[in-house]
């Protein structure tokens, strides 16, 4: 599908960090990891941009304040040819949510695993691998997880996976029980 | 050679026991349903279930023992039934022995276990394992309760036991035997396979355990067996502790009393795990049983 004509990689405005607990948190972390950019989005939401090579180091640092890895979200920016991987962190002690963003090229989508920092990442990475084909180096259980092998090979959440045509190829005649072709317009 | 009266009596008892056993199963479901605040199935539902299972058009088998298990179980249950003094029909029970009956009441389990095992299903095997361990666990208090009874009345003959009780009062009126009664009642729960000792079937854990592979006529046989067994066990209980009965109505009421206690316990307690059940049986029921036995020596 064609979702990608709008770029959203506008640079986050480098505003001065506010003098709140969030601001202090970001400042402290940036101080330790100068390669990362950090900003405060709103109360209880902070954001970091980290280059992919340093992501493991950064997360290791961040795990001291942000105890929990809530999710690894992947966004497929087809136009830019990049995956944006967002590590959603939550700090139980501070009550702050952090987005740790990194970008990797679609063709060579590889990242180090963070299983050693948060064992739960195993599941998240399996899922991200299954849906986007990102390889997390060091995670031993990558492979079909939720999906059957046939769908797994397609990495269905990639933007270039055309679901409708795939479904029609698989189900063919079964696609619609009744005569009328309801697919002649797309929402 | 043939004593026709005896044979007719036996058939009559069998049919009566079968129907009442099924009704008991129905009552069990119905009463539990009422405690659970719902209406529940009609009281004759188990009969319908069994008929349906028997009427299945297809039947699968895992070999000879798989078929033999349920047949054996039902056969032994019928045998046990015929040795229990049921009201004034004393068929073979005139000289029936308590031990023989107590044994016969346990043997059907072996039949079911044999059949279940032969299917090779791990769930069945787990059910078998649990069933046998439950048996091992409950055997000590069960034996003690029976011993206390025998020690007190000084006879193994069931008919004599009934006669003595009707002369001198029911067993539970004797303090020592009241303790034995408590023990027997706890064991009874396991005999019937009800909570907290329904470890054998535990649907949420091992999906009915030994029953998991059975369907169609095999399951119908097991249901019939369960009905006969339920009747026999409640009657056995009534004979041992409630003085038996002189007529069927009397017996029925006593059986019902026994059954309701079991239903109550079953509907308010969750199930133990098998090792907890073993530990439980070897703790309080055994201690009470020993006290009961020592009081009767």
């Amino acid at each position, binding site marked *: 599908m064609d979702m990608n004509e709008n770029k*959203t990689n506008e640079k986050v405005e480098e505003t001065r960090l506010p003098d709140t607990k969030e601001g202090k948190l970001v400042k402290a972390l940036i101080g330790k990891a100068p390669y990362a950019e950090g900003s405060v989005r709103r109360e209880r939401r902070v954001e970091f941009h980290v280059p992919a090579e340093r992501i493991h180091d950064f997360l290791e640092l961040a795990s001291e304040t942000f105890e929990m890895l809530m999710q690894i979200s992947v966004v497929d920016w087809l136009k830019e040819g990049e995956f944006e991987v967002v590590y959603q962190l939550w700090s139980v002690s501070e009550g702050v949510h952090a987005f740790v963003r990194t970008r990797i090229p679609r063709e060579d989508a590889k990242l180090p695993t963070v299983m050693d920092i948060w064992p739960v990442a195993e599941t998240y990475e399996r899922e991200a691998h299954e849906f986007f084909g990102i390889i997390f180096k060091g995670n031993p259980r990558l492979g079909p997880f939720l999906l059957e092998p046939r769908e797994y090979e397609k990495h269905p959440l990639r933007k270039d996976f055309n679901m409708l045509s795939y479904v029609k190829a698989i189900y063919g005649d079964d696609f619609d029980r009744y005569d009328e072709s309801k697919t002649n317009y797309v929402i | 050679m043939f004593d026709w009266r005896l044979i007719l009596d036996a058939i009559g008892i069998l049919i009566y026991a079968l129907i009442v056993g099924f009704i008991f199963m129905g009552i069990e479901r119905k009463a539990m349903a009422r405690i659970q605040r719902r209406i529940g199935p009609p009281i004759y539902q188990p009969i319908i279930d069994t008929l349906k299972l028997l009427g299945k058009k297809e039947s699968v088998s895992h070999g000879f023992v798989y078929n033999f298990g349920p047949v054996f179980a039902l056969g032994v249950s019928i045998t046990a039934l015929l040795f229990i003094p049921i009201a004034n029909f004393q068929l073979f029970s005139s000289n029936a022995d308590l031990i023989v009956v107590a044994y016969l009441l346990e043997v059907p389990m072996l039949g079911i276990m044999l059949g279940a095992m032969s299917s090779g299903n791990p769930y069945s095997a787990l059910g078998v394992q649990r069933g046998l361990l439950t048996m091992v666990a409950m055997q000590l208090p069960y034996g003690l309760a029976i011993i206390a009874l025998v020690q007190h009345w000084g006879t193994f003959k069931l008919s004599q036991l009934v006669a003595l009780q009707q002369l001198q009062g029911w067993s539970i009126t004797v303090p020592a035997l009241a303790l034995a009664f408590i023990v027997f009642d706890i064991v009874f729960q396991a005999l019937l396979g009800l*909570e907290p000792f329904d470890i054998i079937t535990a649907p949420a854990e091992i999906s009915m355990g030994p029953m998991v592979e059975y369907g169609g006529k095999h399951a119908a046989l097991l249901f019939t067996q369960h009905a006969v067994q339920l009747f026999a066990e409640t009657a056995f209980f009534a004979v041992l502790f409630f003085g038996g009965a002189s007529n069927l109505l009397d017996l029925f009421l006593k059986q019902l009393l026994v059954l309701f206690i079991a239903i109550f316990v079953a509907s308010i307690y969750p199930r133990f795990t098998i090792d907890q059940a073993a530990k439980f049986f070897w703790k309080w029921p055994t201690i009470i049983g020993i006290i009961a036995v020592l009081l009767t020596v």
Partner: protein
Amino acid sequence: MTNPEVPKELREEAKGHDMYLHPIAKDTYELFFGPQHMATENFSIILKMDGNRVEKAIVNPGFLHRGFEKLAEQRPYFTNIALLLRICVPESDVPENIYSMAVDEIVGWEVPERAVWIRTTVLEMARLSAWMFWIMGFGNEIGLYTAGQWAAAYRERFMRLFEELTGGRVYHIYTVPGGVRRDIPGDRWLRQLRDTVEYIKSKMKDFDEILFDNYITFERTEGVGVMDRRFALKHAVTGPNLRATGVPYDVRKDDPYYLYPELDFEVPVLKEGDSLARVLVRRYEMEQDLYILEQLLDMGPPSGPYMVQDARLKALPRFKPPKGDAYAHVESTKGDFGAYVVSNGTHKPYRVHVRGPSQSHGVTVLEELLKGARLADVPVILKTLDNCPPDIDR
């Protein structure tokens, strides 16, 4: 033996990891636990058993995978509500709310007060009905069917209230970005809600007596499936499961949303981290939820519109929020339920990613906790983690 389905390059990488070496052992046996099983709701665990003990558990989810996240990219913003709520079937208002909150944040809508009150109430009702459902599930797993039967019947009262409020029994499709779809049907509904709260409150005693105080419940849960605080944090355990290990983290307190900052309630915390602690924490939360609902009813719904006034809503199928992304999460009975929504300015979301609590509870944590558990503990652990398969699968 290597897994033939894993791509070659991955196999190379994982070499030496025992997961890929498979000696077919005779001393252990395999037990397929689910999906066609009473204790799992279309979810499968493959257990490697030694006697009655689990040696190793492998979770096999995905039976309910429908590709929500892909589907959500194909549908307009509002329509997605009708889709995403299916992620958590017993508590379907939670996905509705997180998605709506995230979209609200992207658009920058200030949800009207009345809608906020309704949303809070709906969430709490959903929590209570989910608790009832959980009691049923837990009761069934440990073999106490009576409590389950009662609980499922009492849950119907909430179903009825939902039905009158939203027009749907299970799938309410009610909370939408910008507010809610319908107004409260009237004071009668509020009275009914209060009656229901009172009723459930009176019935809580029954549940205490038969289930939570029951000797055997304690026996079955004490010391089963123990996790400690550190383990819980590393495995992103949330909700009552986390609180049972001694961490007082509750989204309603720590990242407050809706009316929760104004409400008075307590966060129960135990430090044992076993199944019993999880059960007891849940029980206490039930009481707290009833209390919260009472407070909400005392507060009364503020007057005003129940939907934001926005001209863009005139053409609902074509509604376009600005570019941006947002993460919203709420406290569900199962834990911290979150959604990450990315908008690229078109009328369909660019990416929706849902964070179900069972994703962490139901896979890694479960596999860890099951190691060495008795078979009889498996359903107990499953149920006290309150594992909800659809939210793993999505």
